């Protein structure tokens, strides 16, 4: 699990960092003395946990929580107990640590975070499996969940650690694997025809020997996937 620490007080940051260092599976990737810089970082990177101070000048911890769009786990840290109830109004907040944080209390907190991650639905990092039922799918791009209707998707192409989802209007680059999204897509609508391509079966325009035309895209068919494609075609 990787985490960031957001606190305007250096002494507080160094304490949380020291506590994190005692947890082998926890990696502090960055520390911030203000919430704005942390938000900028989170626009580019994903983390599992955010240790967040409530009282910060300008942009408070609660303001920060309200701007977050993806389900990162947040642990609030503060010298006050007054904000505990308010903080639990936010689903992302899994715990509330009152400073100075003791090692025992920190251990309990980490266990709580682990438990909350464990009950999170399994699946792709950026494809919300809970939202794959029905006629649409949610993808996570730049911390925004974007709804895609199955019927809009033309094809999906593997691109290293990403996939490119080609729709009628736009392409979406998502950080996940082809396998993960394949597992979430309805089998009757989508078919993998190559190790790097999944196509929407209903969008096929024509098929040549080793390729499929989908809109303007020519998609290769691998030898091993060809029999399944042929089986699914309503051949005359």
């Amino acid at each position, binding site marked *: 699990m990787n985490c960031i620490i957001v606190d*305007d*007080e*250096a*002494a*507080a940051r*160094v*304490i949380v960092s*020291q*506590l994190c260092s005692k947890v082998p599976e926890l990696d502090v990737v960055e520390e911030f003395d203000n919430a704005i810089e942390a938000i900028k970082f989170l626009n580019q990177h994903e983390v599992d946990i955010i240790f967040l101070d409530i*009282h910060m*000048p300008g942009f408070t911890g609660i303001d920060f929580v309200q701007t977050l769009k993806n389900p990162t786990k947040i642990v609030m840290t503060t*010298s*006050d107990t007054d904000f505990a109830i308010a903080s639990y109004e936010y689903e992302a907040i899994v715990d509330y640590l009152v*400073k*100075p944080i*003791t*090692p025992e209390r920190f251990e309990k907190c980490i266990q709580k975070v682990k438990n909350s991650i464990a009950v999170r639905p399994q699946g792709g990092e950026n494809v919300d499996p809970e939202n794959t039922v029905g006629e649409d799918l949610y993808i996570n791009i730049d911390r925004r969940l974007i709804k895609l209707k199955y019927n809009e998707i033309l094809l999906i192409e593997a691109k290293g650690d990403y996939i490119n989802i080609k729709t009628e209007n736009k392409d979406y680059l998502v950080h996940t694997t082809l396998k993960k999204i394949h597992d979430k897509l309805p089998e009757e609508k989508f078919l993998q025809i190559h190790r790097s391509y999944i196509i929407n079966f209903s969008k096929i325009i024509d098929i040549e020997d080793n390729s499929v035309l989908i809109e303007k895209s020519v998609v290769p068919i691998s030898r091993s996937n060809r029999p399944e494609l042929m089986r699914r075609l309503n051949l005359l």
Partner: protein
Amino acid sequence: MKEVPNLKYLDELAGNDEIFRKKFIGILKEEFPREVHQYVGNIKASCFKEASLDVHKIKHKINVLGLNGTHQLAVVHEAELRKGENFHHDEFMMALKGIESYLKTI
């Protein structure tokens, strides 16, 4: 009886980690006077709301140094400053001076 700061919390946190211990004390020595300076400035300017935020930050360090009585004073002082009242500045300053003197010894 006057409270005496201690490093019990730091000892618990650091264990045998001398690097962390030194780093933390260094931060305390650097950050505490700066926060006190800011607090005094805000009190002088009658910016009580801003001063309450300074007290909030200082409060954490008071806690770290095991000063429970001073922490209670800080809680009251912070709440009053937030309301625009300043009844405990002198008492609070006395406690802060004590901490500053202690930090010079460690």
